[in-house]
């Protein structure tokens, strides 16, 4: 456990000093800060525009941070041969993978905290009211990015960083649309049972990132939600289970890898 935490701490320290991640964070913070200036372009929809733009920026920044940070995490250690130094100590390979993942999640938490604080301040200034429901959206985005980070880490155990960029980017896009496709197909009476079955299996196997996109009712607050607490708890449980699944997969592949 100590070894895992030590690796996580080192990963976190390294990640928050990475210039590219800091640039993404700074750009996101700046855009969130200036988002209230969009108000004149939105007419009566100013609240919608400010909230949706802020959420969009945070989600996009979170996605970029997760992919860029985790793509190179393990390959760089192998390339620089620092992994041999680490593994020559009493550190198991699974501890290394876990430490890297927890370090990435810690970095993500830090980034989301920064963006969240700025977003709350910006919305308070623009809308004239504190909107605590924004925090719910940010928490869900954090789990979405963490799940993406786990997927990127999983791919990084067996593909090169360049391939990983496309693979994880594609997975994120497909994972964001799967539920919608399933829903549309289910509502269409002309869908064949085979097509339904295929999309259902795909949806059940692939990570479903759209479950974490809960910003719409926050942007349109007059909606009455059914069981929002149960939904949040189950979705977070889903994220944790899927992250565990990807980490176990990463460990299996990393353990088999010749170094």
């Amino acid at each position: 456990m100590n070894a895992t935490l030590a690796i996580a701490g080192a990963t976190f320290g390294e990640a928050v000093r990475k210039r590219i991640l800091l640039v993404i964070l700074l750009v996101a913070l700046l855009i969130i800060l200036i988002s209230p200036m969009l108000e004149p372009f939105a007419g009566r929809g100013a609240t919608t525009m400010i909230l949706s733009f802020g959420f969009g920026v945070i989600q996009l920044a979170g996605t970029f941070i997760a992919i860029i940070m985790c793509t190179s995490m393990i390959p760089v250690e192998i390339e620089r041969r620092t992994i041999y130094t680490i593994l020559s100590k009493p550190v198991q390979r699974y501890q290394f993978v876990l430490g890297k993942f927890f370090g990435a999640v810690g970095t993500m938490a830090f980034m989301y905290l920064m963006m969240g604080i700025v977003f709350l301040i910006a919305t308070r200034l623009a809308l004239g009211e504190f909107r605590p429901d924004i925090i719910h959206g940010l928490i869900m985005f954090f789990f979405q990015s963490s799940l993406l980070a786990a997927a990127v880490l999983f791919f990084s155990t067996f593909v090169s960083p360049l391939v990983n960029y496309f693979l994880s980017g594609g997975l994120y896009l497909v994972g964001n649309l799967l539920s919608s496709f399933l829903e549309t197909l289910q509502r269409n009476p002309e869908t064949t049972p085979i097509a339904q079955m295929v999309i259902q299996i795909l949806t059940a196997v692939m990570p479903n990132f759209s479950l974490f996109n809960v910003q719409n009712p926050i942007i349109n607050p007059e909606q009455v939600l059914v069981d929002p607490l149960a939904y949040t708890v189950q979705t977070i449980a889903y994220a944790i289970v899927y992250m565990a699944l990807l980490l176990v997969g990463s460990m299996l592949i990393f353990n088999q890898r010749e170094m």
Partner: protein
Amino acid sequence: MKRKYPNLWVALIVLLLVQAVIQMRVHPLWVRNYAPKQVTPVGLAPEQLLVAIAGFREFLATILWVRADGFFHSGNYDAILPMLRLVTWLDPHNLEVYATGAWHMGYNFTDEAQRSDRRYIPMALKFLEEGIQNNPTVWDLYSEMGWMYYHKIQDPVNAVPWMQIANEHPNMIPARRHMLAHALFKSGRFDEAVDHWAKLFLDAEKDRGKDWESNNLYDVRQNNLEELILDLMRRYGPEPETQPPVDLGFDATVKVVRPRVLLVEGRLGIPTIGCRVTVILRDKGRTLEYSPKALKTFTFEVDSKLTYMQDSLAVREEKFRREIDMSKDPKMYPFKAEEYEVEFIFEPRYASPNVQARIGSDGVGMYDARYMEVVREKPSPIEVPKYARVSDALRRELENPTREVSYRRVRKVVTLTRAEILMLGKRGE
């Protein structure tokens, strides 16, 4: 030799199954609460699609909605329709888009003489129905649907159920609750109209003295309740002012004066101003079904072969007369059918109060030897959305309506052929 790690493999399979189970449990809630409802990205440019997928759905929707507003103010109405589709796809919980979009379809497509293209009304109803399906727990769109029936279609019988659903929502704007009482009265459900005004009055009494708005609401409701009871007493009580019935001596004629131009005229013997006769010209045997169920799926395409014109003619000194020119709008009046019906209707439900004072709002005080008919109506059944906030009793009544109402009207139908309207073979087309 490589190790096999059987425990990890077992864990992997177990976790795979567990996540699938959780996801299947969460999916219905996701569909109910958060789903974008439709994924077909028809009409979005690739960069817009990318922006939408990247998490800026509602942002893009707002931008497009502002753009649609620009089209509206420049009079480019046709361009708004696809925008509405895109905006509601991107943000299905934006109530304003559904409400404004349906109003736009129902009211703003007109001919040169400002007569609505009523072929768009089923489309507006379908659009509102979609909005209701996507937002079943919010009162606004039920109220909008009720208003569309009440005001545009002038069908208070079918306005009532939608307004009843809206009225069951506790956060409905107080003044909008009055519409249900008006619709109940117009549809002839006088007892329920009085009950509803009384209930509203008692509600307002609780907040009386709180502020100016509460006092105003109290006054309005008290006044409406008293007026309604007095009107009912005068019209239907002992020695009613609606008796003996007025002989309308109703008649109407239609003459083609130029190709696609009709001269309609006639008589309606009510000795007071404020009466209007409705005239409808349509393909013979074709009626517009004013129901969301009239369209299988939502479409912006109207039936381009159907001719349907409706106008309202003012009656002065017991006579009406108008030249109806349909020659300037060939898209709206294509005249593709071989035969047409011109229908003249006078019904008292939407007549002005001074007219209703004499003949009643259900026509009890009018008589016509040739064209009088008694219409009996029940609201069409409504499939109440699963998550709508309505009581079980109301849900049952809406799904199987039992309350029938009746009213009197006069109606005359004249048949014309395409050759007659286009003056084919004469000096016309």
